[in-house]
């Protein structure tokens, strides 16, 4: 068991948890958090290199670093700890460790640091556990572990109407997981053909393919919506603006950067992977919903005045694009969806970090009360412009690569559907989704123009200072990643290609 690198991601976090619990002052807590997150980054880079190396050497197993250990068993009921990764999980693990790293620096001066970091680390345990698991039971367990700390993190360290927001976010996400749990139990009872032992193991369920067509049409929407709530799918997205607005900086970063990716990842890994037929047939419903998310979120963001609301609606739009692309059931678009998860994770974490830093100085998030920050805090302002440019899809930054991959893939699928007489829904919604690049430009430039440029609004702001060194580390690390993906996207294509190739994902991409 301990020869598998994946286990160590959770173990390192547990050691960090103990370390923080034993720390005596804030310096020790910082030291533990930073060391731990650096180790996580080092491990995920090692994992990435090793993964590519193995793939290069011709290892074509669907999941690498596979391991399965019995956890407990009662009669026929077995629960295993099953781990394994493919390109998508590796990408997500890398993303999570970068954001944990940046998040630690962004909460450098948080109040009650011990409790805060304990909960934050617990949340990370859930995130990493979720991404490495291949067993529905443990997956769901880690999923819940990631959700619960949110309530306390927002309720205690939040701002504004924090009790309401924390309650709303937790209840809505829990509502989603209620659906999800039903769906997962349903899958379990159909996980094997008659007479064979049932299993929670994802790979075995997929191999058995024994979920009947009727059950698929019932279970697919359950699981898809269950995960979709966390992916901010219209109309289950309203926890996002309120939740983000009240959450403290690092929590917003982790939540928008990583937790919302749990939704997209789960939709793909569980709902679509296990129930391909239903995914084919019911895709249209969710295509409409996610297509709406994309433009709806963008239009809503245009009229908000609170920086965090703008960014939360922008996340609705961008995360909508992730699910939208997944539902295209097309290699290119699905690769784009993962790119978009990475890209959105990094840039939205950057956004929330910057908003937190600006809020920490000006004590307002209302763009009408601020202006001309470029003159006062040039470093933060430049970072904000870069984040904005990434968000509106400027080439050379990550957003462009992700969006273009999605649009090319979706358009291709749309045209194929159209030509083969399968309706023009995908084509129409692809073009509608393309419109989001214009609307995004509108709301990003509106904020940039009001917040950073123009004359200084408030005389008191003139005394404010620019970023401190730890804030510089947090933002610079994210910007470097955003630019790296934007400049060298081919690297990630290599990582993701095998996952979505028609050979390994034949169950879904079989029609064309």
């Amino acid at each position, binding site marked *: 068991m301990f020869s598998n690198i994946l286990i160590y991601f959770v173990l390192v976090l547990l050691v960090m948890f103990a370390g923080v619990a034993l720390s005596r002052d804030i310096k020790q807590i910082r030291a533990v958090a930073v060391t731990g997150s650096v180790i996580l980054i080092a491990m995920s880079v090692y994992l990435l290199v090793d993964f590519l190396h193995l793939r290069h050497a011709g290892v074509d197993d669907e999941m690498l670093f596979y391991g399965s250990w019995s956890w407990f068993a009662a009669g026929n009921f077995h629960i295993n700890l099953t781990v394994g990764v493919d390109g998508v999980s590796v990408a997500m693990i890398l993303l999570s460790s970068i954001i944990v790293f940046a998040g630690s620096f962004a909460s450098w001066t948080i109040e009650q640091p011990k409790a805060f970091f304990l909960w934050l680390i617990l949340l990370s345990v859930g995130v990493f556990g979720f991404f490495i698991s291949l067993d529905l039971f443990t997956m769901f367990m880690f999923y819940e572990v990631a959700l619960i700390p949110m309530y306390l993190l927002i309720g205690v360290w939040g701002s504004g109407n924090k009790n309401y927001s924390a309650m709303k976010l937790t209840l809505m996400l829990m509502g989603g997981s209620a659906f999800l749990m039903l769906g997962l139990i349903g899958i379990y009872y159909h996980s094997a053909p008659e007479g064979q032992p049932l299993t929670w193991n994802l790979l075995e369920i997929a191999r058995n393919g024994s979920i009947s067509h009727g059950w698929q049409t019932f279970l697919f929407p359950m699981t898809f919506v269950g995960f979709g709530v966390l992916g901010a799918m219209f109309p289950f997205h309203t926890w996002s603006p309120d939740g983000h607005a009240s959450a403290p900086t690092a929590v917003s970063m982790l939540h928008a950067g990583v937790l919302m990716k749990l939704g997209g990842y789960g939709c793909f890994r569980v709902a679509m992977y296990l129930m391909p037929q239903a995914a084919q047939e019911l895709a249209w419903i969710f295509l409409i919903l996610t297509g709406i998310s994309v433009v709806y979120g963008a239009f809503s963001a245009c*009229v908000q005045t609170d920086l965090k609301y703008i960014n939360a609606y922008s996340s609705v739009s961008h995360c909508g694009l992730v699910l939208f692309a997944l539902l295209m059931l097309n290699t290119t678009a699905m690769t784009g969806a993962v790119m978009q998860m990475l890209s959105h994770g990094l840039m939205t974490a950057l956004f929330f970090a910057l908003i937190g830093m600006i809020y920490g100085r000006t004590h307002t998030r209302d763009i009408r009360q601020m202006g001309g920050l470029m003159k006062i805090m040039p470093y933060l302002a430049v970072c904000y412009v870069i984040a904005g440019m990434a968000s509106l899809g400027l080439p050379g930054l990550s957003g462009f690569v992700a969006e273009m*991959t999605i649009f090319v893939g979706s358009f291709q699928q749309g045209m194929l559907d159209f030509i083969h007489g399968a309706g023009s829904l995908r084509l129409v919604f692809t073009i509608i989704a*393309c419109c989001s*690049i214009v609307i995004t430009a509108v709301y990003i430039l509106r904020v940039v123009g009001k917040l950073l440029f123009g004359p200084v609004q408030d005389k008191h702001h003139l005394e404010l200072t620019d970023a401190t060194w730890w804030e510089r580390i947090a933002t610079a690390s994210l910007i470097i990643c955003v630019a790296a993906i934007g400049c060298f996207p081919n690297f990630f294509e290599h990582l993701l290609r095998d996952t979505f190739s028609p050979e390994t994902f034949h169950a879904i991409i079989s029609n064309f």
Partner: protein
Amino acid sequence: METSAILILAIPLLMFLFLGLAGKYLPHKWAGILGTAGMGVTMILAYTVAFTYFFSGAPEFISATGDRLQHVVFNQEWLNFYDKLTINIGFLLDPISAMMLVVITTISFMVHLYSNGYMRDHHGVWETGFQRFYAFLSLFSFSMLGLVVATNIFQMYIFWELVGASSYLLIGFYYTKPSAVAASKKAFIVTRFADLGFLVGILLLSFNTGFFSFTEMTSVPVEGVADTYQINLGTAEGIKNIFANSAASTFMGASVLTWALVLIFMGGMGKSAMMPLHIWLPDAMEGPTPVSALIHAATMVVAGVFLVARLFPLYVLNEAALDIVTVVGAVTALYAAMVACAQIDIKRVLAFSTISQIAFMMVSLGVTRLGHETALGHEVHEGLGYMASMFHLFTHAMFKALLFLGAGALIHAIGSNDYTAMHGLRKYMPVTHITFLVGCLAIAGIIPFAGFFSKDEILTACFGHSAVWAIWMTLVAGLTAFYMFRLYFLIFWWKEHKTPEGHHAPHDQPWTMTLPLIILAVISCVAGFVPFGKLVTWNGHEIAGSNLANLNWNVAAISLVVAVCGILVAMKMYKKENPLPEKMRNALPNLWDWCHHRFYWDELYQFITHKIIFGCICKPIAWFDRHIIDGTMDAFASITNKASYAIRGLQSGNVHMYVWIYLVGAILLAAISMIVIL
């Protein structure tokens, strides 16, 4: 060759990164010198590459039959979507990209040099953000160079977006000025909207052809020479298929190819400020004047023309798309010329004149058809319009940059964009005066200045295609002469200059500013004699004879007469202070108002964006989200809440009640079970 090609792109990029990251630690002077030197080296490299391409006669540049070829210098895979659609970043050398290399690096170098003088005040104090300015200029140069050497349409789109962003940054250079911020935002969003069309066009075209690459869409490989292609009519399998299935694949009455080309042209309309997407360009004049000269006159705004020219072997297969190009161009040309006659801000006049001149290039491309045509009794060379368009692009870049830099010198000396504050400056600023006059003569199309030759060829091409457009464009040419000389006379003549109390008299600027003016003026005098027909044609097949020998004198005579008339009218009205302009204005008040207010396009857009998009889409959606969607969620919560309140009375803690409930329950259960058993 490959090293030079890489360096041409790498030097500006590295300069951007260096000045952007380390600029603020450098003294202002060194940032300027470094930026200028970097651009100088790039210019020399670009010249060597272009001269090698045009004159070396190597087999990869010119075929045995004397046709110029397309040569892919390098092509690096950047992103691989799937096997058939791969995005590369590469360097394509062909007549138009070589020409553009020369144009961009020349103007860019002049602007870099000029800005050393312009970006400081009269006491030699540097502008704040001087280093940032040079960083952005380098970013722009990099993006523009990447755009013109693109080997595939997606690379073009990538750099297309990058020039848009650098234009945004440079227009908004004075970021504390609200008007500059608004202008930069407007420019970005309008062009972004156009790029939406471009993107969908790319997707449509690439899906149907199976390629992004220009060489595969518009050329055939040359046997025996690696990476070299001969320009041809659309040749990709996919394009043939579009035609083979043209009956099947139509949408709303137009073929897929027409749709793709028109959508791509929409991108070009945005960047090149064609009506109705022109509204950003006049506002873009909020940027520093050297930026206007570089981006909004000479290079970026002609990207749309370049795009159509690049895909010309496809456009020429599709009459409908070319007709749209022609109509959009012609209408824009007239509109912009009319508006230019009624502007007060010197830079706005130049901006509208730019729009009008770019429209000339568009029209010229639009009227080009393959086949024999005659214009007023003379035969027109095949593909003359294409050559004329590129020729005009070249000459226009030179004289319009000259005019803008001249305007910059005036603004720098006077401290205002408004030419009512200028008047009678000819004695004070002789160098600026002479060079500005050269620019005006060139744009008006007076022989032997550069604009004469290129405009004459455009008009010849128009006459060859259709008399209506030819007459239309000739009138616009006359208007051009009129408004340019109106500007010239109002600045340098009209009445004696009066320096306000306490100010120095205006004077010529330092050498860093006058030298570029002189160089560009010389180029504007001689550029007309560059044998463009031998260098740049749509398929690389040269047009024999010199420009002078090829002139169609019938057309030339007409255009000269019209231009001279325009100048004479301007002279009559504006040379000396007189009431004639005022009378004219009062005689035609509506026309003046409409022209002065640019036909109220901005107000229309203001209405659409604020009232319709913000008021009728964004706000209702935001309201709907807060009140309906979120309201439903809150309603669930409050129903649950109320229900729990309602039933919590049962948990009263009152033991008597619990006993009663217990007893009643037990008796009921007993009764039910007895009934069931019996």
